[in-house]
């Protein structure tokens, strides 16, 4: 399903090219058979196949609190990529090693619904990888300190289940998931709970609710490098398989890094890996500033 926005640059890219012909039908075939050349022709003209400029990010919208069965929820769209995050709290006993700590359990699911490339069944490699990054990010940046989740010392603590489900997978799932989680955490309200010594049960109030005590809120920005020449922010699902190098940077409110990850050969022609990483960092700073404003407005 080609976006109408993309038609114009597509036509431009083909007019000047020495392609077999310039009818839209053959553009569609060319796109499928020679994805790398297809992308490269766009980039040489300064555009991406979805119609944005090379260094542009996709539009983001955030909607919070629409799922009533969750304690907190968010729905975010990043271009066509759509993620829903729901947060549910349950009560458990703390472990013997850490009597004064609750549990935070983040998971990302990329179900078969969201893309033709995924199969039904347990989480695949990609989903497992993202879940681990997300867990690392939340733990290392102390977004939700486990010590803030204690109901009664050694007896009862909160378990915060953070579940992110992708509905439409058009690339850059990790950035979208992180944004969805942060929006949902800020939307979460837990009931006031008290531990009853006699019955050994935890009783929650029906009326008194309070927000989570959140630490820093990191947000992530991802990039891909095409053909060792072009640095592409926010890659789509069409571009992703063509990008051998990917970089993700997550920054907190003070623009301090919480997670940096580069997979594949760094650097572009004429620039060292460090310089490219520095460049992505400053691009990420700008983008995350915008994202924070959108996040603030959504609450």
């Amino acid at each position, binding site marked *: 399903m080609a976006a109408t926005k993309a038609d114009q640059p597509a036509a431009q890219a083909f007019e000047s090219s020495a392609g077999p012909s310039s009818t839209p039908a053959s553009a569609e075939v060319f796109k499928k058979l020679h994805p790398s050349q297809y992308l490269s022709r766009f980039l040489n003209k300064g555009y991406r196949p979805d119609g944005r400029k090379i260094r542009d990010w996709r539009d983001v919208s955030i909607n919070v609190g629409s799922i009533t069965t969750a304690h907190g929820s968010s729905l975010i769209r990043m271009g066509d990529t759509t993620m829903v995050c729901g947060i549910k709290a349950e009560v458990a006993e703390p472990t013997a090693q850490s009597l004064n700590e609750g549990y935070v359990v983040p998971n990302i699911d990329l179900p078969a619904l969201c893309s033709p490339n995924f199969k039904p069944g347990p989480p695949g490699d990609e989903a*497992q990888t993202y879940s681990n990054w997300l867990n690392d990010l939340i733990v290392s940046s102390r977004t939700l300190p486990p010590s803030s989740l204690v109901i009664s010392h050694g007896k009862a603590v909160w378990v915060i289940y953070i579940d992110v489900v992708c*509905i439409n997978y058009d690339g850059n799932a990790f950035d979208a998931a992180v944004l969805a989680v942060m929006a949902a955490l800020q939307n979460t309200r837990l009931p006031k709970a008290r531990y009853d010594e006699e019955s050994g049960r*935890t009783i929650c*109030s029906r009326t008194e609710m309070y927000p989570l005590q959140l630490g820093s809120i990191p947000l992530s920005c991802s990039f891909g490098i095409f053909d060792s020449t072009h640095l592409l922010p926010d890659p789509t699902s069409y571009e992703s398989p063509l990008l051998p190098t990917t970089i993700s940077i997550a920054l907190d409110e003070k623009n301090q890094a919480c997670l940096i990850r580069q997979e594949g050969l760094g650097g572009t022609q004429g620039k060292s890996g460090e310089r490219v990483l520095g460049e992505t960092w400053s691009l990420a700073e700008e983008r995350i500033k915008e994202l924070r404003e959108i996040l603030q407005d959504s609450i």
Partner: protein
Amino acid sequence: MATAFDRRRIPAPEVSIPPIYEPLDEEPEAGPSKRVDRGNEEARPIFLKTGLISQANGSGYIESGGVKIACSVYGPRPKAPPYTPQGTLNLEIKFAPFASDPRRAPLRDTEPIHLSQLLTQSLIPAIQLEQFPKSSIDIYLLILESDSTSNVISSGLTVASSAIADAGIPMNGLSTGSIVISNKNGQILVDPEENEEKDQSGKLLIGVLPALGKLTNLYMEGELEIDQAIQMIEQAITASRDTHTVLAQSLLEGAQERGLSGEDD
């Protein structure tokens, strides 16, 4: 007690229980239905939109009462051997862990299989599977929010029909579902809410092809007089016709938004 350890997910504590709330001051009393915003024979309003999932061949999203479901259809696409003269219909229902109260832990959730069966049965007569030898049509439903199971089935059927039609797969008709209960006061209630269902003496769930005037599926439980059962079936069919109108309208709007052409697929 510990079940097989799930290595594919971030570990959670072995046992955790949903919050227990303070008892309510007054229990809501059971009595004749007191619907204020709609009549007993009226279903709740439906929001239905097609084509939201760009990666899929066809998709739909429905909100009805306390239910939110996204559905996508992939196919017809090539199927692995053995050869089948007819297309194969695969349907999977998945509840998001946060979609119900209490939370549905992955792997421990057994309900979707029986629901998938019911939906598949209702959809097979609606699709012209004989046109797709060696192919499969994969339908995935993701429940984002749910109240009662029966509402999930009837809304699920409606949204699946819309997604199949949106994918341009030839159908005999649009299959829609509806639920009717009768309560202990002998009232017949169409599209019951969760608290009304608790008070039921009998429940009827049907799948209908309203355009052809055919039933695809009927599931009745509880204790009912024959006359009452027939009356319930009639009411359910009437309700499905209304849903059919909404469904057809949203398909039309979806097609118009895309300029009524199948060229860009």
